[in-house]
């Protein structure tokens, strides 16, 4: 199975090097990849139908529990066949649709990259590898939506889609990590037995919310649905493949997969039912207001995805059967309708439904495919759509509470979907053929055979639903439900409520089709509501975020040193000041303080004067000189207070600094006062507040007793251990010898830097 998943990746890598041979007539050969994969997966149908689950595992990063484990049960098989089956047809179709396109090879590269990622996603048994494939589908979708990258629209839509699904992917990762943490494994097959303990864990709600967010963004559920209509900017084969048949169902697939593990709570069921119901009805109503064929199909796809989420939310066996049959139904008719739309667009140059009519005269086989697709979509017997719709009603009718409300919502949605199918599949072909379309001719068979094949398949499955029952429906239910009841898929159930509901749907749908005509006016009318649509709200949010970030940057990162410093000082004042004053008490024992003598007073006065002079003098030389006086006062101060070493060091260092300053000084420009008074007063106040805070801090510390433990240790051991009598020296060169060594190396680096800067000769360029 690993080989099957990797095949597409390898092919797309191969195309990077050999792409130019696949731009012309050879392009159609690319379809061999999905076709052979389809045959490969189809060979498992019998085994899986007998209830076997095929497992395969390759170690990848075993230390993290991340392995490439693949599982093939009913559910993955259905998706794998759908991916490769629709994929084969789309690969063939593309060869004609984008014939002689200069980047055709690139397109096939993206498509097969996507196909492999999607296969990996549905076959993964490991949540981590599933996440990686999940992200790969988002990325390949980004490239495909933005395939016409010279158009601003396409690029924007691609970014929106990537943004939404990418955020969903991140949340999926979060959910997967949490779930793996709770379960102790990333393997879904091992989680199945732990459902009870996972449900009881405190993280359960968070896990479910994260998984929902991932599924809803990927499967375009309200309020994240808006990226999907935007994604219709992609070439039609992409819309067919990714944004209707496969990728958007990844979210649904995830919910399917997780429902035996996480699906035991009311929260799970109710949330899914609510979001599914809102999505299916909301976007079904949107269909009426659209005139672009692809727009209609996009909204009906969202609506269908809503139905699937809704059915998984109901979660009974009947609902799961309905969902799995509906997935097949939807893939068959929606992919066909997209391909048909692509043909119409390709041949007539427009997708505006108000301009299209009577095309059956020139595109007969396409019209047949369209008509059958509409029948399947509307659920008209004997198509598979009829079976699917009956199953949906059966699921809603037998749900314990609110059965009537749910059924009504389902009926309303189905009526609107009936309308959508007929508008897209029937309307363009009937009526009078406008003159401008008389020269329209049939496209290559590569384009019209795929939709015809799928729709005919939909009819055959409808007449013989047993074909699906044993191959897909039963294995899927076996994979998801523990104690299954036996069931049979039938076209004819006899006269009962469900039949009556089906008939109502068909009648009302037909009436709707004949009364409401797609009009531009309606589309314009609803566009007024765009202001409050989720799409615009989210765009506003993201724009606001950008504005906020640039504001934040310009406030905090404006490149002026004084600005950064003011902020740091202000923050320190607030933070330290708050702690300082929270419980401020000063109880300094005045008697313990040393006495004030005339010598110290005179030194302090000298210090004070020189500091103030340094700050306020207008002469640079005077500032440097008084700077030297500051240093000398310090030396004296240290001498007074029993620190002879400090005094000596300070004295020599200070002398050196002053000499260095004076040496450099004569080359500098005039000593200017560059700031205006207002700024200086502001900075002065800030500095003074900070200085007084430091003073208070010192006083506060002085009122606490001092810990002398370490000093006593040195006092006792300086001679006995290190044989030195000057304790300060002993600390520096012996007890903390390595620190001093590092300090010396810092000085060496500084000295080298100084030397280098002095000796470095300017390049002629810098001298000018």
């Amino acid at each position, binding site marked *: 199975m690993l080989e099957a998943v990797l095949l597409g990746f390898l092919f797309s890598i191969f195309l990077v090097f050999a792409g130019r041979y696949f731009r012309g007539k050879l392009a159609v050969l690319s379809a061999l990849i999905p076709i052979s994969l389809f045959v490969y997966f189809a060979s498992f149908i019998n085994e899986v139908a007998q209830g076997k689950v095929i497992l395969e595992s390759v170690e990848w990063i075993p230390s993290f529990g991340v392995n490439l484990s693949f599982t093939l049960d009913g559910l993955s098989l259905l998706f794998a066949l759908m991916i490769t089956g629709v994929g084969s047809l789309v690969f063939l179709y593309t060869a004609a649709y984008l014939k002689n396109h200069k980047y055709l090879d690139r397109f096939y590269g993206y498509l097969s990259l996507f196909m492999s990622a999607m296969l990996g996603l549905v076959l993964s048994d490991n949540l981590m590898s599933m996440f990686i494939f999940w992200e790969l589908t988002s990325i390949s979708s980004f490239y495909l939506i933005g395939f016409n990258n010279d158009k601003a629209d396409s690029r924007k839509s691609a970014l929106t889609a990537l943004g939404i699904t990418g955020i969903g992917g991140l949340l999926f990762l979060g959910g997967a990590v949490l779930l793996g943490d709770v379960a102790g494994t990333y393997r879904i097959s091992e989680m199945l037995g732990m459902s009870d303990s996972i449900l009881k864990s405190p993280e359960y709600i968070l896990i479910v919310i994260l998984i929902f967010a991932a599924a809803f963004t990927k499967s375009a559920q309200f309020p994240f649905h808006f990226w999907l209509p935007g994604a219709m900017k992609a070439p039609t084969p992409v819309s067919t493949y990714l944004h209707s048949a496969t990728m958007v169902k990844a979210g649904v697939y995830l919910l399917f997969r997780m429902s035996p593990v996480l699906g035991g709570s009311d929260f799970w069921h109710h949330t899914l039912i609510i979001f599914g119901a809102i999505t299916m009805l909301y976007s079904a109503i949107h269909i009426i207001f659209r005139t672009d064929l692809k727009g209609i199909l996009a909204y009906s796809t969202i609506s269908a995805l809503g139905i699937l989420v809704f059915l998984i939310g109901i979660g009974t066996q009947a609902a799961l059967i309905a969902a799995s049959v509906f997935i097949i139904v939807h893939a068959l008719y929606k992919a066909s309708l997209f391909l048909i739309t692509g043909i119409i667009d390709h041949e007539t140059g427009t997708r505006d439904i108000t301009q299209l009519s009577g095309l059956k005269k020139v595109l007969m086989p396409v019209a047949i495919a369209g008509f059958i697709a509409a029948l399947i979509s509307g659920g008209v017997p004997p198509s598979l759509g009829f079976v699917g719709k009956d199953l949906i009603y059966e699921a809603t009718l037998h749900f314990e509470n609110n059965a009537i409300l749910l059924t009504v919502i389902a009926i309303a949605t189905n009526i609107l979907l009936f309308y959508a199918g007929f508008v897209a599949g029937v309307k363009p072909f009937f009526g009078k053929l406008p003159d401008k379309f008389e020269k329209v001719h049939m496209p290559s068979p590569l384009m019209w055979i795929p939709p015809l094949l799928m729709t005919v398949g939909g009819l055959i499955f409808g007449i013989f639903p047993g074909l699906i029952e044993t191959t897909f429906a039963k294995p899927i239910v076996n994979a998801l439900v523990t104690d299954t009841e036996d069931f049979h898929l039938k076209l004819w159930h006899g006269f009962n409520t469900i039949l009556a509901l089906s008939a109502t749907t068909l009648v009302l749908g037909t009436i709707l089709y004949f009364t409401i005509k797609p009009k531009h006016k309606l589309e314009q009318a609803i566009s007024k509501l765009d202001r409050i649509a989720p799409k615009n709200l989210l765009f506003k949010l993201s724009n606001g975020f950008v504005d906020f970030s640039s504001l934040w940057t310009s406030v905090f990162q404006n490149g002026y040193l004084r600005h950064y410093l003011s902020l740091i000082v202000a923050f320190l004042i607030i933070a330290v000041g708050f702690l300082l004053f929270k419980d401020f008490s000063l109880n300094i024992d005045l008697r313990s303080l040393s006495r004030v003598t005339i010598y110290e007073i005179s030194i302090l006065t000298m210090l004070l004067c020189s500091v103030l002079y340094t700050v306020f003098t207008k002469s640079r030389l005077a500032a440097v000189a008084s700077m030297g006086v500051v240093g000398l006062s310090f030396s004296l101060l240290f001498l007074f207070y*029993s620190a002879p070493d400090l005094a000596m060091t*300070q004295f020599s260092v200070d002398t050196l600094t002053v000499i260095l300053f004076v040496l450099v000084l004569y080359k500098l420009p005039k000593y200017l006062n560059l700031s205006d008074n207002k700024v200086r007063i502001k900075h002065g106040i800030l500095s003074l507040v900070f200085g007084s805070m430091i003073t208070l801090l*010192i006083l506060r510390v002085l009122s606490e007793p001092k810990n002398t433990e370490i000093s006593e240790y040195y006092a006792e051991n300086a001679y006995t251990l290190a044989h030195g009598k000057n304790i300060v020296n002993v600390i520096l060169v012996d007890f903390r010898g390595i620190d001093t060594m590092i300090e010396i190396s810092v000085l060496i680096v500084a000295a080298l830097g100084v030397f280098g800067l002095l000796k470095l000769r300017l390049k002629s360029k810098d001298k000018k």
Partner: protein
Amino acid sequence: MEILLAIMTGILYASGIYMIMRRSLVKLILGIVLLGNGVNLLIFVLGRITKGEPPIIDDSQKVLEGIYADPIPQALILTAIVISFGLQSFAIILVKRAYKVLKTDDLDQLNTTDEDS
């Protein structure tokens, strides 16, 4: 006396910060020196001050006893003085160099990495 020294430390901090916020590069360095002195004094005062009792063991004795100045702050400050000398000399030469290349010591004209501005 400690209270006076505490006030002095505050003044040194305030004038150091104030000078760093000036636009002139020379003032910036002077500010760093002042602030460094302030920090030294802070550590010194926090270690309590003692008059006339340096932490040196008498020739006749092996252990320091009685009243003595705390050697730890002194060791810290000694390190700080030397390191700040390294910093200051490097900064002074850097200012000189920057002026030679750019003909200004105004920080506001140095806040771009573009060569031509």
